[in-house]
């Protein structure tokens, strides 16, 4: 399953314009990691009779399917879409190249480091670190739930933050979920824009970290203001990292930690792809549509 996170490090301020709107803190360096979870699978010890286990591809499915042939297209035409037109995207060539670079980065750099990290640090500690970082990023969820008028979520997020920051030992544990049944409501500014019907725009694959689009790129830049883990010039008192290097350090650690809890997911996902770039693009865009609808 695809899990997306990102790092934003503001290097310098510069104005850019998106649909006529000036957006200030730009010139950012993104890292987005597609991190996936794995698990260990022990090898077999007992053989089971082939006859019991045999799962043949049955011809009955093919023959019975003819029963649907007439009604088939009408029956499901509303549920599925056909991409008959190829939408022009000026970033396609770049996206293709960047997908390949990101793939190499995940397979040859991030995964090997994550595996060593996985073997070094107990899982419970890594889960604790993941919980704590998620807890610190509370302002992003709080602000965006508020901006979308999801007041029940706002209240639950506030409750989670208060409980987990105190009884949860600075967020390392998640008693709000365990004992109160309060689940997180992940919302970001890209989703907020989508909530107000802003179109995703061109799909853009970001260096190191994977799929995004114009709308979500703007969202990432805006969320940088709310996140205590991203250094923004002029907001140092509110931020944990005080400069670029510290921001990079915090997020590199976060990425490796998250990926160590999701080893194997990326490889599993890749098996479903006929072409990696269009595949990752489609599942990213589908996932974002669902997240916005929710």
């Amino acid at each position, binding site marked *: *399953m*695809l*899990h997306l996170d990102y790092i934003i490090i503001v290097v310098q301020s510069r104005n850019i314009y998106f649909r006529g709107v000036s957006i200030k803190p730009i010139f950012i360096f993104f890292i987005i990691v597609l991190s*996936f*979870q*794995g*698990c260990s*699978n*022990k*090898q*077999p*010890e*007992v*053989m*089971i009779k082939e006859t019991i*286990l045999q*799962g043949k*591809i*049955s011809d009955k*499915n*093919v023959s*019975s*399917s003819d029963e*649907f*042939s007439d*009604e*088939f*297209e009408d*029956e*499901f035409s509303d*549920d*599925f*879409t*056909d*991409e*008959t037109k190829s939408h022009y995207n000026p970033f396609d060539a770049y996206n293709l190249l960047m997908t390949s670079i990101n793939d190499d980065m995940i397979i040859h750099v991030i995964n090997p480091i994550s595996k060593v990290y996985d073997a070094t640090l107990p*899982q419970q500690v890594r*889960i604790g670190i*993941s*919980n704590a970082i*998620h807890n610190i990023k509370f302002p992003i969820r709080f602000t965006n739930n508020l901006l979308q008028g999801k007041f029940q979520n706002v209240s639950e997020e506030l409750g989670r933050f208060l409980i987990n920051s105190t009884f949860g030992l600075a967020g390392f544990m998640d008693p709000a979920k365990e004992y109160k049944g309060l689940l997180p409501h992940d919302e970001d500014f890209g989703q907020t824009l989508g909530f107000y019907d802003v179109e995703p725009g061109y799909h853009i694959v970001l260096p190191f970290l994977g799929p995004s689009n114009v709308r979500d790129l703007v969202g990432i830049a805006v969320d940088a203001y709310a996140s205590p883990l991203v250094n923004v010039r002029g907001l140092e008192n509110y931020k944990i990292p005080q400069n670029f290097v510290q921001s990079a350090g915090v997020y590199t650690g976060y990425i490796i930690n998250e990926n160590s*809890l999701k080893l*194997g*997911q990326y490889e*599993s996902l890749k*098996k*479903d*792809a*006929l*072409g990696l770039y*269009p*595949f990752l693009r*489609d*599942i990213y865009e*589908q*996932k974002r*549509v*669902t*997240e916005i609808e*929710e």
Partner: protein
Amino acid sequence: MLKTICIVLLMSISSQAIVESQIQKVMDKKVHQVLNILKNKSLSQKQKEKKSTLVMDSVFDYATMSKISLGKKWKTLSATEKKQFTNAFEKKIKHSYIDKLRLYNNQKVKIMALKKPKNTRITLENEIIGKTDTYKVLYLFYKKKKTSQWYIYDVKLAGVSIIQTYRKQFTSFLKTKSFKELVNSL
């Protein structure tokens, strides 16, 4: 005689699809059965896949999934090609589904509420509570008109439709390559 009755009964139970009132109950049982198989350390990965797919076979309508995934191309195929594609796609789907579940075999699964957006559609949501995240798995059922039984025609993992994703990929693939190449690539 008793033995024969038992065998007939067992066969009828294992091969039947689901009636509406039983969807939650049957799926709860099947999903947990599969997760238990995947957790069984005495089985090889291949054995786990075979056992798991046997559990799910009666509710997954692979033929309909194959048709939907090919879209309009389906109607242009001969009977042999349809069979070829369905066989290849069925294998692919089974492997993909089990491989995804394998990754979460240490997690808890909660069967959530059933929804009926229209008369011939039902969705059943599962929540897989992972180490740090909760993932949603949505099983999409349709009602087969002749028998009034319900079958799964798509699964959405974290909001991503498996069949829609394949459909897009296949459409794109077939613009530049042949049907034969598509079957081989599966």
